[in-house]
């Protein structure tokens, strides 16, 4: 009767493997603000350090692998912004809030020092790497009570000159889309590729610029670009039947394979486009992309977002959670869907805090596997990903 199953799916479009283990109640046992104080402060102390007057996030906490991290450092700073939002209105945490706020300009001045492609410059052959930094600059601008103009102007310049420009420059490849990297172009190389990891964040930036900039022409221009990127990614790198975001287009074909961060940025921009346009289609898309992630990209035993490995990959889950919490807080979300998403988020947080970290240690290290703690030398990406879940619990409005 397999033919029947295909009929049944008409109704079952959005309902995959719904999480079974329910830790919702247990989530209430913890004071997540207190947990956030511990994990985020620990993270900052061990990873955010000064060299020659510049502050930036380091590869590892061990002081040995002390290099900067040009793009993971941006996500690490996004976490600090989360912590600032959590503490800014809490009189008992005024000192902490000030500490986080002081990091905004420090990060902006220091982060460029970690650019391997040119110390002191934001320019990098990898489009996505520049994008993550631009997103963070805009985060700083949006959240600081007295933001510096250069955070916005720099973000806009980097996006206009080095990110959006790759659309026209390489439009003959895949009919559009933002380039992933100039490094794949040249003799004996694969040629231009258009990746989900450069297009999702690119559309996020354009949405943010459209939202932030006051001028109506600017708003329309960047919204147009955000939609264009979104349409391209949806047309080429997305399976609307499942909600899966594919990795890239290269050498004339789509290379499948879904990762939490690509799901996260595409979901994030779908949500922002809904907020900017009111078109329900975008919200439906965002829900579907989220559903695919929380049902398919999970560890089936513990129902947590899967271990995607170390290196670049250990940053991915933190990126998904960053955009997931925004969607969970969306007032227009269907209440049943929200309940399901909250259940998933709380489950992540409880598993992570009870199984995924050794609370007896000072370091409180998270691994790439959220069901197993880490010890000793640890990578930046794995740590901020874990911390981001904790802060997400604090940002939850429902």
């Amino acid at each position, binding site marked *: 009767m397999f033919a029947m199953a295909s009929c049944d799916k008409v109704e079952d479009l959005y309902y995959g493997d719904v999480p079974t283990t329910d830790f919702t109640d247990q989530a209430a046992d913890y004071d997540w603000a207190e947990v956030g104080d511990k994990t985020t402060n620990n993270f900052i102390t061990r990873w955010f350090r000064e060299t020659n007057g510049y502050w930036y996030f380091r590869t590892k906490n061990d002081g040995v692998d002390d290099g900067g991290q040009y793009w993971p450092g941006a996500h690490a700073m996004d976490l600090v912004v989360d912590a600032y939002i959590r503490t800014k209105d809490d009189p008992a945490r005024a000192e902490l809030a000030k500490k986080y706020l002081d990091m905004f300009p420090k990060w902006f001045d220091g982060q460029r020092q970690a650019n391997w492609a040119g110390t002191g410059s934001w320019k990098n052959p990898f489009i996505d790497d520049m994008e993550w930094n631009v997103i963070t600059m805009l985060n700083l601008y949006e959240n600081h009570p007295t933001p510096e103009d250069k955070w916005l102007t720099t973000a806009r310049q980097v996006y206009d000159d080095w990110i959006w420009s790759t659309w026209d420059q390489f439009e003959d490849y895949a009919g559009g889309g933002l380039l992933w990297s100039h*490094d794949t172009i040249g003799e004996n190389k694969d040629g231009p590729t258009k990746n989900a990891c450069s297009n999702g964040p690119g559309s996020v930036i354009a949405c943010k610029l459209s939202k932030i900039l006051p001028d109506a022409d600017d708003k329309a221009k960047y919204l147009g670009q955000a939609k264009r990127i979104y349409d391209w990614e949806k047309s080429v790198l997305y399976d609307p*039947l499942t909600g899966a975001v594919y990795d890239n287009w290269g050498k004339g074909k789509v290379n499948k394979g879904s990762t939490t961060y690509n799901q996260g940025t595409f979901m994030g921009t779908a949500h922002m486009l809904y907020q900017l346009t009111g078109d329900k289609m975008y919200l439906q898309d965002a829900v579907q992309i989220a559903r695919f992630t929380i049902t398919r990209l999970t560890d089936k035993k513990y129902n947590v977002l899967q271990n995607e490995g170390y290196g670049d990959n250990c940053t991915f889950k933190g990126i998904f959670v960053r955009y997931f919490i925004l969607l969970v807080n969306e007032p227009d979300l269907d209440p049943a869907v929200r309940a399901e998403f909250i259940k998933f988020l709380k489950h992540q947080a409880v598993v992570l805090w009870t199984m995924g970290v050794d609370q007896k240690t000072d370091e409180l290290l998270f691994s790439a596997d959220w069901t197993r703690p880490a010890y000793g030398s640890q990578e930046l990406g794995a740590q901020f990903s874990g911390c981001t879940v904790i802060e997400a619990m604090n940002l939850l409005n429902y």
Partner: protein
Amino acid sequence: MKYDMKNNIIRLSVLLIAAASLWSCKGDMVFDNVQPVAVTELQSPAADASIALFDADGAKTEFRWAPAKSDGVPVYSVVFYVSETDKDPVFTATADNNGTRSIANVLHTDMNRMAQTAGIKESQKGDVWWTVVAAYGTEQVVASTPRRKLTVTRMKGFIGNPGTLYITGSACEVPELADALQFRRMDDGSYEIFTQLKGTEGTDKYWLVDTPVDGPNKRVFGVTNGALVEDDAPLVLGTGESNSANEAYRISVDFTKGTFTKEKVTKVWYNYPNKTAENSDMTYAGKGVWKLDNKMITLHNLGDNPDNRYHFRATIGGKTVVFGHREKDTQEVPAKYDNSSYFWANEYENKSDWDYSFKFMPRTNGIAVNMTLNLSGATEHYSHAIDLGNLVPVAVTALGSPAADMSLKLDNISGSKQAFSWTRSGSAAAVTVYKVVFFKDAAGEQKVSEVEAGNSDAIDILHIDLDTIAGNAGVEAESEGTVYWSVVADVLGNAAMPEFAPRALKIRRFQGIPSNIYITGSASEYGETLTAAGKLKRLEHGKFEIYTQLKSGTYYFTDKTDGNGIRFAVNASNQIVESASPVTILGDAKVYRIRLDFTNNTAKLEAISKVTLQFSPNSARDADLTYKGKGVWSKEGYYVEFHQEGWGRDERYRFVANISEPSAYSEVWSALPAEDSRPNKLEYYEYYNIHVQTYNADRYSLKYKFMGELDYKTADVDVVMSPDVNNYHHKIYNVR
């Protein structure tokens, strides 16, 4: 709705079983008492939305609507119109899952065609209107809401490459349509042709067609305002456009971009590196072919060796391009001048004189050849040819020694040899090379070996080589058997076998040198049980090698494991001696490389103190391997992380072995010096072979590369110098 659906499913499934069809949900089902119900809500794209069509494989746009509230399972289609009121659709797309979903993912290639039908031009924007039709059996109901307007931006370029493309017209080399010259379809889907245009300027014409056969299906392309158009708009030969005798055009056409480009080919030449005096212009011979006849090839020495590299160059549109070999620096020298893929010519932007060169056989030096560069679209690949003209081998007329059926007993004295000789029909030019060829069979069909004799009528072949040849021909060790030999004359790969049959030679192979050698005893890691003794790797006749551990105890070598063998030991002066007494080892266990040479009865024992995996760009990631036994070293849990450099990620590595006795030195265990590629799989293949090489302190010069997918992974690494494997190698496994 969900429960309604389930009821439906139960009912449908009954019908289904009755119909004995596994394909449900399709329009050809029988519907009982189902009333047609129209879709009432179109959801996305929103009304008045704009979309761009993307020229990427599989690109699509999702159309979505609320399912009709009915008892039946309708078949949905999205229907497109040129206006809000027009009755005839321009395109209908069935919804996903054979029309059963309330979503349709419509391919951009289909929408591009639809837009064309709706009158929207390439790259242009235009409006279409869409709605949804629900069909119940033969009943169709259109959505009750108004059609939605959708602004569509078409892709660049034409719809549908013509597949084949020809040039025709009075200005062409071949004016007759039936014989029209064909364009080459390039890898990127564009087309090009090298051809002449000539005739009366202002009068003669040319145009492009997709078939050389006249008929209603023939498509004709011309150029209007510089852009390619599909209509009968022939191009007229303009002023100054007619080619002179030795010129031609390269015409490039790209249907996806809608472009037509014409560049003059003003010069094509044979290019010898760094010696412009050797270069010679080629003449245009028609139909995309350039020729250079009777060209004397002179190879100049570069260092001590003649530089045998060459390629072709052309000036096209004022720019110099190279037509050369597919590899930038090929090490391959062809064995003959033929039409094999070696001679295919690829086009490159201007490169150094040496890059993308072909290679002459060095003996071509001083010979005059005819060259052709074929850039015709009618052949599968652009290519070139070297033709030796009337140069033919000087044949062998008779064999001299050894006499027919002679018995030859090989002996172990170093340097022992046998003379082979033959007579030629005349004096042979230096370019002719003679080869003594050995066969397994009298008919000369199963060749086993050949020995080059140069431009000579005799050669001495060493007994040690004849022993190998006899072995290859199936003669058992230490016994006698027959091989057959003859002599071939070869001019630059143009080879001729004599008319007469090969000659028999009886060879008695080496006596008294063991074919197999084993190590055994309490000091050996193979233990004292003779049947479990470790078999040494046989390198060549009489030479053996093993990487093995020796510990406190005794050991000896033997040539048989049944107890009837001869026992050998190594004495204090490293001589192999027949001895009933084993060798005694005292002290700590060490790993040795033992090499035994029974042709001069010498032995060499070298202690290997350490084997290290060196990660070329970062010594902090070097790792020592642990000796696991029987010639295998291992590193468990090696974390691979490529080193980030400005140009990309560095993935190079190699192994270094430290030898501590008899004297201390190091060796590199790596790929061969020329190897610079990444492997394409983790499973064993020759890439992973270990070549023992002289130590080089440059960590990058002798190396391997990790597979790209190993970056940020942990894996186990084994170095396998076991006597049991055909090739020493390493393996990377258990990746996690």
